[in-house]
């Protein structure tokens, strides 16, 4: 294909997206579109399955049967969401195994927040409330993203996630209204998870590399800073309601902006965690790689069995 032809195709492609048409797997697409989507969708999928680990850490220790089944169902949903997203990614011609390979070798990234440890039960509340809260803000706009399989996966994810944040907030309510010890546990969890949750919405717009292109392709509808502001504005009243204090001395309602002003974010910490120096980066990766390696013989056996069955069937037919 000549460069000129390519330019025409690209222009037509961009026009389709601008008209709000969806792109489907077999449609022609610029190589950059394919690569960017593989990167973003797989990062998203990896975040779901690495995200199972910090919460999975408390399944066996959940304090009541009701909490246990809710947490189990939630962590299981995350596996499901990872699966939907890997499947969407596979429509672009890359296998799940290749995607795992990228995760396991550190080539692919996942959301840094899952590199923080879950040290008390209240962390289950804080993750559901804050981390899922921030995730939803990120995800809802993706339901109308330009790539069909991604948009469809996100619609399913958002529908299923609606109980996740409630599940977390309910845990916090119960703790905040409980004994002084429980309330302290809740406040401590909020103190530890607040700032990482704000960082989760991504670097400031000034430092964000992909934003403009992503906006065009509807991989992003709002800038990181806007999303962050939205998250803060919706979360602060929820904290007030249950009598917990957001750990930011600079937090203050700004009447003019009709939004909260907030203090500086420690971006140095963010980049350190991204680079692998978070408290649990190694543990998380060991857990993922370990599960995959321990599963090798299982997956191979199932495949070998299926082949034996298929050839038996063939023999019978002959």
């Amino acid at each position, binding site marked *: 294909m000549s460069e000129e032809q390519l330019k025409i195709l690209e222009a037509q492609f961009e026009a389709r997206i601008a008209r709000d048409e969806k792109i489907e797997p077999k449609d022609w697409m610029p190589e950059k579109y394919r690569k960017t989507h593989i990167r973003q969708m797989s990062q998203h999928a990896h975040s779901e399955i690495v995200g199972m680990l910090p919460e999975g850490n408390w399944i066996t220790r959940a304090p009541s049967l009701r909490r*246990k089944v809710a947490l189990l169902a939630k962590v299981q949903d995350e596996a499901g969401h990872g699966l939907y997203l890997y499947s969407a990614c596979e429509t672009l011609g890359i296998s799940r195994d290749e995607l795992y390979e990228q995760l396991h070798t550190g080539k692919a990234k996942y959301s840094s927040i899952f590199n923080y440890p879950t040290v008390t039960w209240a962390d289950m509340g804080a993750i559901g409330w804050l981390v899922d809260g921030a995730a939803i803000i990120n995800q809802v706009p993706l339901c109308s993203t330009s790539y069909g399989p991604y948009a469809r996966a996100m619609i399913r994810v958002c529908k299923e996630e609606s109980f996740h944040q409630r599940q977390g907030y309910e845990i916090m309510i119960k703790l905040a209204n409980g004994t002084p010890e429980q309330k302290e546990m809740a406040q401590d969890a909020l103190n530890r998870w607040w700032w990482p949750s704000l960082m989760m919405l991504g670097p400031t717009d000034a430092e964000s590399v992909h934003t403009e292109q992503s906006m065009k392709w509807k991989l992003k509808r709002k800038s990181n800073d806007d999303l962050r502001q939205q998250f803060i504005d919706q979360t602060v009243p929820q904290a007030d309601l249950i009598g917990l204090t957001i750990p930011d001395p600079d937090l203050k309602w700004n009447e003019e902006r009709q939004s909260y002003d907030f203090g500086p974010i420690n971006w140095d910490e963010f980049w350190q965690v991204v680079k692998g120096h978070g408290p649990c980066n190694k543990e998380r990766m060991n857990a993922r790689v370990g599960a995959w390696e321990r599963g090798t013989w299982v997956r*191979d056996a199932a495949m070998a069995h299926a082949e034996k069955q298929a050839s038996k069937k063939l023999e019978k037919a002959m």
Partner: protein
Amino acid sequence: MKENLYKYILGIADNSLILGQRLGELCGHGPNLETDIACTNISLDLFGQVRSYYQYAAKIKGENATEDDIAFLRKEREYLNVLLVEQPNTDFAYTITRQFLFDVYHFLFLTELQKSHDMTLAAIAKKSIKEVSYHRRFSSDWMKRLGDGTEESKQRIQDALDALWTYTDELFHQTEADKIIVSENIGVDVTTLKQLYYTEVETILSEATLEVPESKWFQKGGKDGIHTEHMGYLLSDLQYMQRTYPNMEW
């Protein structure tokens, strides 16, 4: 309080609680996503059953007892599950074999429990049996896949089977409380299920090209609250919150 009925219900429910807990440990660590999700589904089914049984047991116990008191605040000697279900997830072969050996029993047991003269137990059995029917299919299919898969898988699943076989006979033991409840047409006479159980198990094992273990020496004790060394650690996790922060609501 109907002491015998209470104990009888715990004997059933504790199996589901402890097995559900074991499966819960695996969530996020399965051989792949699909299998991970499937095992968690089984765990969720079991915990659902547990809650129905314990809620009923709590009513019988009175004194404002709750499902959580019963689940979390007993001493190890007061848990009445069979030894089989508390065995650890040594590898996926152990997980599947434990599941299979329990599912075949569980299905036969619930089939009979549906006929109980106790309406609540009969209703729980009727609801649960659909779930357990699926569990049995799932674990049987995996026994066949792993048995008739690769050399490595065959070896692993045979090892797991040889190790867990010793816990199968206990499924058909009766405690004193069991005998009384059976005589009242509420409980299931498990001794009558034994032959059918081994026939069904052996049919699947033969399809899975596995050897039926020859050992005739069996371990027992769980139904009387005497457990294997694994149990204490499992309970430490299970009870951690309730023990560390007593008398609180979550």
